[in-house]
């Protein structure tokens, strides 16, 4: 009984702000287009989907998150294989290096990253943000994939080599299908951590290429349409909540650290 009450209180605590956001997202909070303040309907969502900046913000977010996932998997897979299968000089130092990058707060590196990326011509483009988010997502990808590869017995590799597969052929044709769930889990955490990040995303989009998170901040002004802000927030939550639901059994993986 006590347990049920405690869990209900917890659910209320967690859900309350989200419920309010959902309610507000369906409420007209600024009088416009003949909608009285307080009327209920889909006007906020309709507004967002017809505002070009907000449309492009959604596309920008999807673009940089895709760049980030592709880059993390492309660089993370070979690195994870190396760490799972080989002892080599400096392997622990590499783990320490990625641990340090994983926990370094974005605000500490935001200034130099802006300057370096400005010189590389990567400001105002989704590609720049996609690359920067590798700072914390690549370590996570490597840790997750390493744990999945480690779970595959080494004899599996050896049998494939005896059967005449090259290491590359084995990697793409046998190992990747084996650890497909791990790749999915890694991609999910890259998506979420990249999707919600703000400091780098804001720093690197001065005049163009603004993603959803930055577009939401830009909606605050002299007369803020809080209903539209909440509608945008709810839209931004949909993909992450769907992925959260699909990968519910792997939640702990995204927060594993190794040293």
């Amino acid at each position: 009984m006590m347990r049920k009450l405690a869990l209900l209180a917890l659910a209320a605590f967690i859900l309350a702000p989200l419920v309010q956001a959902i309610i507000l997202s369906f409420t007209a909070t600024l009088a416009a287009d003949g909608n009285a303040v307080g009327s209920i309907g889909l006007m906020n969502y309709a507004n967002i989907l017809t505002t070009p900046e907000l449309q492009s913000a959604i596309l920008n977010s999807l673009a940089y998150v895709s760049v980030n996932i592709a880059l993390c998997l492309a660089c993370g897979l070979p690195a994870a294989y190396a760490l799972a299968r080989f002892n080599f000089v400096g392997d622990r130092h590499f783990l320490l290096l990625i641990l340090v990058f994983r926990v370094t707060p974005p605000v500490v590196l935001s200034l130099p990253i802006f300057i370096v990326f400005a010189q590389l011509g990567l400001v105002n483009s989704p590609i720049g943000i996609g690359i920067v988010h590798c700072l914390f997502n690549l370590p996570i990808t490597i840790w997750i994939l390493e744990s999945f590869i480690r779970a595959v017995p080494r004899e599996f590799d050896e049998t494939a080599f005896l059967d005449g597969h090259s290491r590359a052929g084995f990697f793409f044709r046998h190992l990747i299908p084996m650890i497909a769930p791990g790749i999915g889990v890694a991609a999910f955490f890259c998506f979420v951590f990249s999707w919600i990040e703000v400091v780098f995303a804001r720093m690197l989009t001065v005049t163009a290429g603004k993603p959803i998170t930055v577009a939401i901040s830009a909606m605050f002004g002299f007369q803020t349409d809080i209903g539209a802000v909440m509608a945008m927030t709810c839209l931004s939550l949909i993909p992450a909540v769907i992925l959260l639901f699909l990968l519910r059994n792997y939640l702990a993986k995204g927060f594993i650290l190794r040293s």
Partner: protein
Amino acid sequence: MERWTDNRAWFLLLPALVVLAVVGGLPLLAVINYGLHDIFTLSETHWVGLQWFEDILDSDRFWASLGRSLLFSALALTIQVPLGILVAKLLLPLGRRAVWGLVLCALPLVVPFNMIAMLWLGMIQPQIGLFGGMVQANGFDYKFNPVHTWVLILFVDTWHWLGLVVILAYAGLSSVPQPYRQAAAIDGASRWAVFWYVELPRITHALAIVFLLRCVDSLMIYTEAFAINAGEPNDATRFLSLDLGEEIKGFSYGQAAARACIYFLIVLSIVWVFVIATRENRRPQ
């Protein structure tokens, strides 16, 4: 499982190293370099040596911010870690259904960082907030009362990050074999004793991860604190990262870079303590 020994494995790390060099290595070198210069424009800089570092370490402002951040971090850890373990303990007997509790706790983790403060500011807003009336009736004034600002930031931070503690504590607790608990219970151990002597020693690694993540993140809290009161009232919530953000916005790039170096060293030393502690821990097993 034995692993092959082969230093050619470094070639497999190359792509990852190149990316990390661009997003981590180069910026770190740049930040150290800028920290040693006075920067008028990026093409007009003057060597100042360790001047900025000395200025920062000599200023009361830095030590005051560090103190506030340490206090905030200590409070956040004291509230969130026991509370998260408690929730994980509540979820544990639910078996497979517990995963829905974990999904629930994970919801705040997927909310965009800048919206977390907004959601709660909306909650306590007098006109539209669900808690608005209640909060106002109790004289809660987060804009001008420093204690109330602290309470609000801690509350929001707990909402945001409690799920992380719950998920990792649950993962640790669910890996403790059930017979251990039963054996202890047969011996007449209280529930508290079972937790303290049977479960806790087996989840220390999971908890070490929680401590590291929460410690660094709360010490460097920026987005929520800035959105709630931007360091006010009277600098009562001016944390380390808010000083840094202010200098970057004020184009004091040299000073900001030196400050970023100092913060990086703080983070590095916390990681170092974590690594030492977890290695000491693992050896006896």
